[in-house]
């Protein structure tokens, strides 16, 4: 892969998505560099989560194109985007498999990185048993990575909110993604947990994984991201490094309403 032409990790062009009378995404275009941390911000209803769903294949654009690692993705189903294009995600409201153990949750994340369909799963030849050992070890390693090894046998729904967030991230990392989408990972976390999360995001990027996050907590966004993309009414209104974006009058207007930028200028 390293020898080929350098592609953006993610690229979308002119994305549109309408729900009934609501134009949630209206011609959004952006590019994201490999192995970088990018934040997607904007007021409520700006289309951030919709864009995540379009990128992960959980929804399809009415119009527009998506490339993941240079490969067209807008018509692929979610499981192929996750399994083949190696794009993993978390959800705004945590979606763990609540009745399963923490370890099981993360092992399920290893699904596309392991083999063995119905017949092999029933007969369990030696190679399947080796796969199982490998998957178990990998899942434990990811739990270690997010710092939750102790909780591996707990039932997922019994964990605290912050711990559930971490399990969800560990489960996404178990896909060995090239790109990780985090949908409001800091929502509901206390300041200490937020700090841990920021460090974790840096650590993930350190592994060469591209991170794209939707986040409302500006201190976290400004601290970790190299690039910030601002959405409003389904369109990209600004993009650049955190400081530049923060100073952009269009951004201030979008967040504080019309007139705000004038009165401050």
């Amino acid at each position, binding site marked *: 892969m390293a020898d080929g032409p350098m592609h953006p990790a993610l690229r979308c062009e002119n994305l549109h998505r309408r729900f009934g009378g609501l134009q949630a995404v209206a011609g959004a275009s952006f590019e994201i560099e490999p192995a970088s941390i990018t934040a997607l911000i904007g007021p409520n209803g700006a289309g951030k989560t919709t864009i995540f769903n379009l990128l*992960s*294949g*959980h929804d399809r654009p009415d119009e527009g194109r998506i490339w993941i690692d240079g490969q067209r993705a807008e018509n692929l*189903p*979610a*499981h*192929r985007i*996750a*399994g*083949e294009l190696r794009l*993993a*995600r978390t*959800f705004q409201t945590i*979606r*763990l*498999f*609540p*009745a*399963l153990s923490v370890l*099981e949750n993360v*092992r*399920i*994340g290893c*699904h*596309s990185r*392991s*083999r*063995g*369909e*119905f017949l092999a*799963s*029933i*007969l*369990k030849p030696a190679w*399947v048993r080796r*796969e*199982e050992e490998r*998957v178990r070890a990998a899942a434990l390693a990811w739990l270690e990575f997010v710092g939750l090894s102790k909780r591996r046998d707990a039932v997922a729904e019994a964990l605290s909110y912050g711990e559930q967030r971490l399990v969800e991230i560990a*489960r*996404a990392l178990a*896909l060995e993604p090239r790109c990780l989408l985090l949908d409001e990972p800091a929502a509901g976390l206390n300041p200490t947990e937020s700090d841990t999360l920021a460090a974790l995001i840096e650590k993930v990027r350190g592994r060469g994984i591209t991170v794209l996050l939707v986040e409302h907590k500006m201190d976290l966004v400004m601290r970790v991201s190299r690039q910030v993309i601002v959405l409003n009414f389904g369109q990209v209104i600004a993009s650049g490094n955190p400081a530049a974006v923060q100073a952009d009058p269009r951004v201030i207007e979008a967040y504080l309403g019309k007139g705000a930028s004038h009165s401050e200028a």
Partner: protein
Amino acid sequence: MRSRAYASLALIFAAVFAFGAAAPSEHIYYLQVMSLAGIVAIQAIGLNLLLGGTGQISLGQVGFMGVGAYTSGALLKLAGWPFLLGFAVAVAFAALLGLLVGYAALRLRGHYLAMATLAFGGIVFGLIHEIELIGGPLGMLRIPPIDLFGWRFLSPQDKYLLIWAVTALAALAVISLLHSRVGRALAAIREDELAAAAMGIDVARYKIGVFVIAAILSGMAGAIYASYLGGVAPLRFSIIESIALLIVVVIGGLGSIAGSVAAAILLTVLPEFLRGYEAYRPIVYAVALVALIILFPGGLGRLLQFAEGGIAWLLRPVRHLRARRQPHG
């Protein structure tokens, strides 16, 4: 965890095979009752994989059994095919229908899937009731017996052992499947389909897959049943029988294979000890179904888990020894 799932199953099958091996000839009647319980158990294992494994419901499961029984019966009796060939074609046909129903089930869920599978079972029943070639309402008689490479299963004991060997294999296969990569994918689908897809799990493929396996098990049960009894009649394949199967699975506990086998035995054998109250049996089962699903959806499987807990506790010293020999516990 897995050793626990096998522990109660091992106990059940030990008892079943001990009974089969030891039963004196005056107990032929009970061998026959228990053989029919095995037929029910094979199907219950499949329905439990479907319902407990992925949360998909089927109210027409016995329809697949009807397809298996009539296909095999007709091929053996009318076309003179050898048992294994008729059996294989019958199971393949049931699997094909399972594929179609499973594919349709992707578009339907919950109440709609329940109603659609009910209609499927009703169509199978209606057709076998109407097609003259396979006996219409009277069914077929004189279906040749089970014959494996020249070994004919004629005595009640042989037939009993064969049926329960198939049941044991089916139970082991499904438990093995549940404790595997595919089993985890099924659990993920049952818990949250969207999150499962985000894990790279091909939801449609696995949902169809379990429908096919459930149909195969019912088809096998049907083909064996036809040759076991040497005859079939439509009434055994009515919707009421599909609901009776559902009762077995719910009483056994959703997701508990050992529970399904235990419930199949219990619900088939119990009436033999409650002679004189025969008329009340169906309504008692129906009341038990409603009460259990509302109050105690874990069913018999949960009780077995307590029993498994007890067995695991008794085996504790052994496991401690084993654990000490390995570097990590």
